[in-house]
């Protein structure tokens, strides 16, 4: 697990991981806003195939285990919701 990161560092790392793991072409970290809904067609437009990857890399990098679907509904929303959860729980 990495050393304690700041919220901003976690946000940046999350954006980089999203782009790399999900092969988001023509997108750079600066193009993703912190409050963008990632599974919304008006946002990043990710789908359940991408969700699998996110759940796996959250665990691999930060040791975050999302326990149930209720929790996933709250955490897997935007860069901000994920980063805040990582900051408090990693």
């Amino acid at each position: 697990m990495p050393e304690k990161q700041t919220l901003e560092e976690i946000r940046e790392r999350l954006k980089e991981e999203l782009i790399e793991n999900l092969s988001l072409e023509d997108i750079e970290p600066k193009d993703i806003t912190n409050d963008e809904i990632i599974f919304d067609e008006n946002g990043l437009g990710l789908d359940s195939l991408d969700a699998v990857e996110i759940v796996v890399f959250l665990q691999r990098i930060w040791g975050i285990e999302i326990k149930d679907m209720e929790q996933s509904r709250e955490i897997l929303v935007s860069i901000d919701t994920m980063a805040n959860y990582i900051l408090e729980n990693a």
Partner: protein
Amino acid sequence: MSQTLETTLRGNSIGFWFFKTFLRFGGLYAAYMLLLGVSLHYWLFDKKTVKSSSAYLKRRFPLDSKIKIRLKVYKLIYSQGKQLLDRIAQTSGSIKFDIDFIGRDILNEILTSKKGFILLTAHAGNWQLAMTELNMLEKKIFLVILKENNIAVQKALKINNDNSMFEILSPEGHLGGIVPVVKELNNGNAVSYMGDRPYGFESLKVDFMNDKASFPYGAFAIAAATKVPIVTVLASKTGFKTYRVDFTNIIKPEYKGRKNKKNQLSEWVQEYADILNNFFEEYPYQCFLFHDVWENK
């Protein structure tokens, strides 16, 4: 995302009572005799079943006339009924079936690794009978199944029982219910998916019986992301009281690079479709899809 499929729960409680009584007092032969008439009823009046099974049979037997296909529909309905009765007989403990497990050593190897794995079943042969025999795994099996299928599956696998080795995970939740699936795989447990129904994930078109058919890719996407193997389960009825459960077909999805993931998934889905195709070539009357997977939507 999650697609809802209409599910046919054939029979009613009175019908099942008759079958159970025939099984109890006359054994399998008597129950199979009763089934001949009941199958005739479905063959004559259940248009949906006739249509969906014809979709399979005309591809499996492309040279057959319409009349021959229609007759084979009866054979298929009867065959499914027999396997349903076998399952009832087996779960009630009234009749013992000889089950030959092929590939137990491969399964043991996976179990020894302590990694989680996906059990991929399909409406091919008697998958529920095979599942009830998986207590040899000595671990809980998490079934990813739609709510409307739960009643039939719960009855067959005795899921409400406190000591049940099965637990149901719904694919209807947030993001196709993948969070608990990934969690159980990371905990080294077995998660079972139906490989021929799109629970929680979209489907891909692959070659199946010389035509393009839709198969779901969810199990393969999860396996590739979590790096767990897929163990396919094929349970064929090989005789009056004999079955063969085959675990030898293992698929190990692993992404080669991060580009074109859908194409890579397609390769593994095709591999599975080929496994099913081979099974249906060997056992043409053990294809219980009853769903037109070739339908263009």
